[in-house]
């Protein structure tokens, strides 16, 4: 069963809401990183529309680094976010979704790649830094936010889905 893509308005609204949550959750870094990963890997990617996805991902990266105020040279997270969002969008076009399990598995793989790439980019941009456990929290909570995004974007009430 081929899953249809959500409407661009819904996706952009969800992305805007997630970006606002990234700013609002700045006092809670563990929650912030989960929302950030949700926005970058699940909400922003869209097949056939790489520009909007890259912009949302870049905004998420700059928002996260700007609110963290940890790195002397920002931009590493934004670049990694854009890269993974473009990759996820390409994967969505190349291998369309067929079920929630494949969706969660894809998110898990992208999350691992995102973690590694973010650390590499931040290391290049601002030097050595602590790894932290944000990736672990994101991975542990992946079934929750993955399922939620699945319901909101792909199987929830929609004029197109009826």
């Amino acid at each position, binding site marked *: 069963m*081929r*899953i*249809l*893509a959500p409407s661009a308005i819904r996706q952009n609204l969800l992305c805007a809401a997630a970006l606002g949550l990234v700013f609002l959750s700045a006092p809670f870094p563990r929650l912030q990183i989960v929302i950030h990963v949700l926005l970058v890997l699940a909400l922003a990617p869209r*097949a*056939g*529309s*790489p*520009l909007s996805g*890259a*912009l949302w991902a*870049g905004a998420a990266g700059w928002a996260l680094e700007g609110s963290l105020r940890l790195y*002397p*040279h920002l*931009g*590493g997270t*934004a*670049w990694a976010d*854009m*890269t993974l969002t*473009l990759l996820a969008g390409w994967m969505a*076009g190349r291998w*369309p979704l067929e079920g929630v399990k494949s969706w969660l598995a894809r998110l898990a793989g992208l999350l691992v790649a995102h973690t590694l790439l973010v650390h590499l*980019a931040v290391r*290049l*941009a*601002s*030097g050595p830094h602590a790894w932290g456990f944000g990736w672990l929290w994101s991975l542990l909570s992946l079934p929750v936010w993955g399922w939620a995004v699945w319901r909101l974007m792909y199987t929830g009430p929609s004029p197109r889905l009826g």
Partner: protein
Amino acid sequence: MALRAAKWGWSRAGWQRLLVLLLWLGHGIWVSLGPAPGRHWTRLADTLSRPSQGLASRWAQWRTSRREAARTFEETRAENARLGTELSQLRTQAAQEAPRLAEADEAVRLLGLKRQIPLDLKAARVVFSTRPAAFGGLILDRGRDLDLVPDQGVLVPEGIVGRLWSVGPTQAKVLPADAPNASVAVMLMRSRATGVLQGLGSGRAMIRYISNQEVVQVGEAVLTSGLDRVFPRGLLVGYVAEVAPGDLELRVLVNLSAPLDRISTVLLLPSQPPLEVQAPFVAPEQKPSRKRGTP
């Protein structure tokens, strides 16, 4: 999901892809610059300006070194002149003080010898020397004013000099041990054979009355025997220079140890000293050199 294959070109999708590419590349370049991105430009500028900086540095260094060299040359010349003047003054001063220093050294040595010999020794200064002349001797600056009498022994730290030949009111004449008419009772250090030393001139003398049966080695020390009652036993006279068998006795030539031509101060033994006193200097015997390792 229906995907529409977007074609490259100056279409809307092409512009979007170009923007995405620029956005992604811009971020990537910005990340690759790392912290303090201005340092790359600074490093590049440093690299480009290195040759000119090197030239400027060498030029400034050359000017500084030239200025320093000129200043150093002038200073060196002035210091050289000052040191030259100071050196000449020191040399003059040293030349002026040399006789006094030599006399002081001699006095110190005589004082040491005087402390070693348990006799009432008197000191006198040599004011004139007639040794180059036949039967010449040394003229001392003291005479009867120091209760000197003829036949008192005269010695220096290196060895005996001779005996008083004549004594005047304020001067005395010394008959050196190498004078042809001088005689000193001596003995050989190793064989203890006794004889009479007769002068040959020029710091040399000959021992008479040594039997052909005695074994005398070249380099053996010759000491006073005390039998002439002028010198006590054991004072150093000289060293055997040559030994040759004669008809009746050995012909033993001796080099006197006292530098008779360079004496400035002497010690005078008391008249008729005891035969035996503690010898102040028993000179080490001049042994022939041995090969290392031989017994």
